[in-house]
Each structure stands twice: as C-alpha cells, then as structure tokens.
C-alpha cells in the first residue's frame, strides 16, 4: 500500500482534479474587478457542497455522539450554502441595469 496504489485506486478522480483546476482558472481569469466580491461570495457558497458529506455522515450515524456532531455539521454546512447564495444574490441585486 503505497502512493502508487492510492493513485491507481483514485485515477479517475485525479484526472478530474487536474481538469477542474484548469477549468477554475479559465472561468475566473477574465473577470472585471467590479465582480470580484460577488464572485468570491458565489464561490464561497459553492464550496458549501461539503454539506453533502455532512448529510451522508449524519444519515449513517449510529449513537448519540455521532448524531450530535453530524447535526452540527449539517447546520454549519447549511449556513454556508444558504447564507452564501443569499448574500451573493443581495450583492448582485444591486447591479441591475438602470434606465
């Protein structure tokens, strides 16, 4: 069990990671500085996808401690997702075209 074995087991994910790094760079590279703050905020909401992990953990929890910790994790993750998207929307609401 070494690094090679790990790479072998996760080869698809590793390809995906490398691709996504380039996609992320490409998506962001031509942004006017006006949109930097909303974009950071939007990206912040998207990494809230970690909540899926929290839901899985909580759904499989056996025993009170795991359940409580899972509960907190889901609440925190939801804060990240909902708060993130709502704040971003509020920022962007102000960019509506005028006359």
């Amino acid at each position, binding site marked *: 069990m070494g690094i090679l074995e*790990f790479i072998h087991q*996760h080869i698809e994910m590793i390809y*995906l*990671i490398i691709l996504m*790094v*380039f*996609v*992320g760079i490409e*998506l*962001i590279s031509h942004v006017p*500085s*006006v*949109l*930097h*703050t*909303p*974009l*950071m*905020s*939007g*990206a*912040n*909401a*998207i*990494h*809230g*996808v*970690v*909540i*899926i*992990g929290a*839901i*899985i*953990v*909580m*759904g*499989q*929890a056996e025993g009170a401690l795991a359940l409580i910790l899972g509960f*907190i*994790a*889901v*609440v*925190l*993750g*939801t*804060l*990240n997702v*909902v*708060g*993130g*998207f*709502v704040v*971003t*929307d*509020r920022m*962007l609401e*102000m*960019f509506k*075209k*005028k006359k």
Partner: protein
Amino acid sequence: MDHVLQLVYLLAAVSFMVGLKMLSRPDSARRGNAIAAIGMTLAIFATIFLFRGQDGSHLGNLPYIFIALVVGSAIGYLMAKRVQMTAMPQMVSFFNGMGGACAAMISLIEYGHLSHAAESGDAALFQTKIPIILAGLVIGAVSFSGSMVAYGKLEGKLKDLSVRGQQFVNMSFLLGILLLSVLFALGSLDGVWFYLILGLSLVYGLLFVFPIGGADMPVVISLLNSFTGVAAACGGFLYDNYVMLIGGILVGSAGTILTVAMCKAMNRSLTNVLVGNFGGGGASGVGSAGVEGTTKEISLSDAAVLMKYAKKVVIVPGYGLAVAQAQHVCHEIETLLEDEGVEVKYAIHPVAGRMPGHMNVLLAESNVSYDKLVEMEDINPEFKSTDVVLVVGANDVVNPAAKTDPSSPIFGMPILDVEDSRNIIVLKRSMKAGYAGIENALFYEPQTFMLFGDAKDSLTRLVSEIKSN
C-alpha cells in the same frame, strides 16, 4: 449508487461550472448565482432521498437531518438578509468559516467510524482513508479559525497582534502539523494525537491570520475561501462523490487565481502579504520621513462652490465611505452636481475598501449608475482634465509615495493619480495615517484641501451647502 442520484450530481456539477462562468459577467451574474443555487438544492435533496450506503441501505435519521437543514437555512437566511452592505466582507468570511468547520467535523466523525472499523480488524480501510481524513481535518480547521479571526478583525472586535518571531512560530506550527500528520497516517501514533492535530490546526489558523493587517484581509479571506474548497474536495475523495470533488476543486483553483489577482492589483506577491506583516504593528512610522509641510483646511461653503462651478468632478471612495455608510449621500451629491451641469465620475481603485469590488457593491446599492464607476487604468489619464477630486475616506490608494518613495512599504503599488488634477478635497476623520500606517504626502500638496469630520456628516452638510448656494 443510484442512477438517478448520479444524474442529479452530474447536473449539479454542471450547474456549478455554468454558474461560476455566468458570475463572471455583470449581465448574467445574478442568474449564474441562482443556477448554482438550484444545482446545490437538487444535489442536497437527491442525497437525502436517493443515497445508498455500501450495504445498500438508505440514509436514516431523516427527521433530524431536516431539522438541521431548517435551522441552518433560517439562521443563514436571516444573517445574510440583515447584514449591512458595508459588512459584506466579514459576512463572506463568516460563512466561509462555517464551511471549513463543516469539513473538519466530517473528518472528525469519519475518524470515529474508522477507529471502530480498525478495532474490528479492518486495518486496510484505515490506511486508505486516513490521509484524506487528515487533510480535510487540518485544512478545514485552519480555514475555520482563520476565517473567524478575519471576521473578528473586520468587525473591529479583534486587533492586529503579532509577537516577535511570529513567522518562526508559525512555521514551526505548520511543520509540526505536517510532521504529526505524516506520522499519524503511517500508523505510528496513538489515536489521541488525532485530536492534538485538530487543536494545533485551530491554533495555527489563529496565528496565521492575526498578524495580517486590515488592508490585506480581502486577500486572506479569498485564500481561506480556496482552502475550504480543497477541504470540501477531500470529502469528495472520502465518499467517491464527484459533485463534492468538482465543487471543491473549482472553488479551490478559482479562489487561488482570485487571490493572486488581488495581490497583483496591489503589486505585491502572496508571500509578501502573508509574511510581510504589511499594515501590522511593524510598519508604523516607516516612510514618514520626508513628508513635511502644512495642510490647508477648507470651509464647507468654499468646497461647495468649488465643486458646483467645476466642469468635472471625480469622487474617489475608500474604506472611510463604507465605515461612515456615506454611499447614499455620496450619490445625492453626484445627482445635485449633475443637475448643475457638472460631469461626475467615480474612480475605483482595485483594492479600495476591504475587498476588490467593495466600492462597486456599495455605490451600486445607492443606485449609482454602473457606467459612472471608472476603473483605475481608465480614469488615471482623465485626472489632468479634472477640476476637483473629492477623496472620501481613501488614503493609501492615493498616496504618491507609492510612485516616488522606494522606502515606502506601498512602493510600486499602482495608485490613482489624483495629484494631476487642479483641486483635491480630502474628506478625512483626522490626520491619522491609513491602514498601511504611513504618512500621505498628498495632503501637503499646494492644491490639496482638507475637510475633517465623519465622511457622511461632511457630505450631508456639503449637500445642503450646494443646495443653498
């Protein structure tokens, strides 16, 4: 896993990419955010109802999961709706910290499961998963505590703090965490060390952000944002979950690029921001040499007349505008002057305020038209033909020392060339130096006039002066 679930995850992953792409254009940004949000909602509900564990069973504890979702949504929604536009940067930092904490807790719980599995003899599983769990734990914890410090600092609840040899201490912490993690992954440490690594990571997050000055907070928040992205991607590895992996890595890489772009706007390297201690206690007094002379104050009525009979006025907003909540009255002055036939524009420095685009967001809130906000490269040649520049709570971004004084800590940062204009009116609370802690020679220029007081207060009185004149 279920086919439908996979399909939903695929849709969600695409929605993140499309959403981010649309977020990078002003006309589609809002829809982009909505698309990503819909994708996320679908992914969350699909996980709840369709996810099957390795033994093929659905998720349990559904009532509790729904309670947690409702609680989190209610708190998050209220916080996001109630926050003042000026407090936006710290809000983002707070939510980012929540994501980091969530990632760290997942690792914490999964570790509990694993040690059970290991006791019952499944050591191979332990070996494969533990590096990922550790990575999620460390990165998530650093991101959490770091974001909370950034939040506290921007809220004004925490002060800059750095001790002698801080860089050395930080380095030792980082190396210590890495070393312990490697040893732990190799299985040569006791279970209790796992929690010690968690503790060290939390402390490291504090130490990491504490010495960094207020002016550099946006860079730090953006960096921590990409950290959380990577922590989320660790979860993707753990559960073979592609949507978590894609969302996390996208944010990780996009966030890093955004961080670098912000540093570039300040003409500094990321290392310089993190190690340079710029704006912290160490920089005070530096660069003050050579700035001598007297400043001139201007009366409200003189300032009003000067602006009213100008052909062209450029307003330079800074953090002072945000603190004083002066964006609405600023817009009022702008419309008043326009009615008098004055051409009014706003000069937006890329790092004015506490986040790139901070000023745009604020001014857009008070209905300033989008095309009046001019970026630095485009406005700089225009200062020569400008009659009056009104500097509202900005300091370092108009400091000529950035061009003339190689010993200044901000030397090399591109600035707004306001000194080219005929008159400069500076609204400032006091003669105190800006966040970089350095004197500003601009205030001693012959064409510069100071108007002391709270930005909102001064602007309000200027409005009535312009009206009555």
